């Protein structure tokens, strides 16, 4: 495993080194020490690397990720895995606001809680949160799955286009045009697979499914102010 000391060598060197790895690289295992809450750690990766960050991170860790697995052995600041395209990001602690925002693909696992706006404008990413999510999560979600094993805050799925939202605990309130949906066998299958891939021991049958009522798709004069 290659070891990179962020405090000694700096952020630019880290990201340049990781981004320079070819897709056939043999040096796939990396460890980043002394992150000390720095911003933009391991962003823009595009190779099948396995990067472990030993500590908590600041803004935008693992942003724009493709192919790589990034493991954060601490908590993550705002915008973790923002605009992820593929690969996997695992946060051992909590995640701050807008985790997984605008993500197009890949899997984001948060083993603690996520705060507000988790999965805002998600476009195909799968997000699994072992704890709770804050208010306005999955706001304007377009595609993908958000799985919440704990509770969801206010206005879940506000102005949602498409995307599946699975919540095991309480939902404080649903946002505009978000409604509870029937949980069919196909959804249980999807959920079982996501929980399995996230390594979370929970029964799919305990979750409820929410999604778009599709009433905001077309202009309705009664919605105008």
């Amino acid at each position: 495993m290659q070891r990179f000391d962020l405090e000694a060598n700096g952020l630019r060197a880290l990201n340049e080194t990781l981004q320079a790895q070819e897709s056939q690289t043999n040096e796939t295992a990396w460890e980043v020490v002394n992150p000390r809450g720095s911003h933009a750690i391991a962003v823009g990766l595009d190779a099948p690397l396995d990067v472990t960050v030993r500590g908590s991170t600041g803004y935008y860790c693992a942003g724009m990720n493709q192919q790589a697995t990034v493991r954060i052995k601490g908590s993550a600041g705002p915008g973790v895995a923002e605009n992820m395209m593929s690969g996997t990001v695992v946060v051992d602690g909590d995640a701050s606001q807008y985790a997984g925002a605008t993500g197009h693909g890949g899997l984001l696992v948060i083993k603690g809680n996520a705060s507000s706006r988790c999965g805002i404008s998600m476009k195909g990413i799968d997000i699994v949160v072992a704890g709770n999510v804050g208010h306005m999560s999955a706001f304007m979600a377009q595609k993908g799955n958000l799985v919440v094993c704990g509770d969801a805050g206010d206005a879940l799925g506000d102005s949602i286009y498409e995307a599946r939202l699975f919540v095991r605990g309480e939902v404080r309130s649903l946002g505009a045009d978000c409604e509870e949906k029937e949980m069919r066998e196909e959804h249980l299958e999807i959920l079982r697979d996501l929980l399995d891939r996230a390594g979370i021991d929970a029964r799919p049958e305990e979750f409820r499914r929410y999604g778009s009522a599709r009433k905001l798709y077309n202009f309705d004069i009664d919605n105008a102010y």
Partner: protein
Amino acid sequence: MCGIVGLFLKDKALEPRLGELLTDMLITMSDRGPDSAGIAVYPGAHEGLAKLTVQADDPARFEGLGAAMSRALGADVALRVKDTHAVIDLPADKVAEARAALKSLCPEARVMSAGEAIEIYKEVGLPGDVAKRFDIPHLTGSHGIGHTRMATESAVTTLGAHPFSTGMDQCLVHNGSLSNHNSLRRKLAREGVSVETENDTEVAAAYLTWKMQEGHSLGEALESGLEDLDGFYTFVVGTKDGFGVVRDPIACKPAVMAETDQYVAFGSEYRALVNLPGIEDARVWEPEPATVYFWKH
């Protein structure tokens, strides 16, 4: 964008290190607010004594002010000059008289804070430079809050820097912007509460002072602020023996807290907290939106 740091010590053994720890946190937040910086500390009260922290652009104005104030009040007064600021120690019952006397003795001086314990130091410039000018690393105390400013709502001036103090031993720092500060300023004026600058944050500080004058606790004042203050805010507030945090219901402005047996710490980002003793084992969390947090000695 602005940066906030705060440290409320539970363990007296850390008190000699308050200034050093806060300075490190403040400098880490330089890139959130390189315009100006300020700090409020509570070095502890002495029975029967109070202090005024005053500021003048030209420190030469403080020459002879101690003796003149002593004569005007007919009481013992001590003056400590620190760069553009001076702390005037005086009998606790003479604060109002001293404020009035200051207007004629040193018309250029502005009162930064008044109280039994509080001292405020703030200036335009990089946080590291401001900390050096006032020798902040050597300040001691039971708690303190600091701010690095990136101005949005009013000019980059010493008086526009945070913390703001609008009541005895009270102070407030703010990350965000208020949208109803003009109407609130007029409302406070009708209630007899004056606000000195054009700054939105000072209105928030004055609002809390007004609520407390009406008999509310700081916690209750912060709760009613959630109703009456419109805009984005993370506030950290200090009182003689207390330390509070509140975020608006949307909670865009970042906040991280850490607590150990020795302290409660606040940072706009986790980065600000990484050098605190025992941070590895601290309970670290993000304060909830629209929720008042408060600690008291």
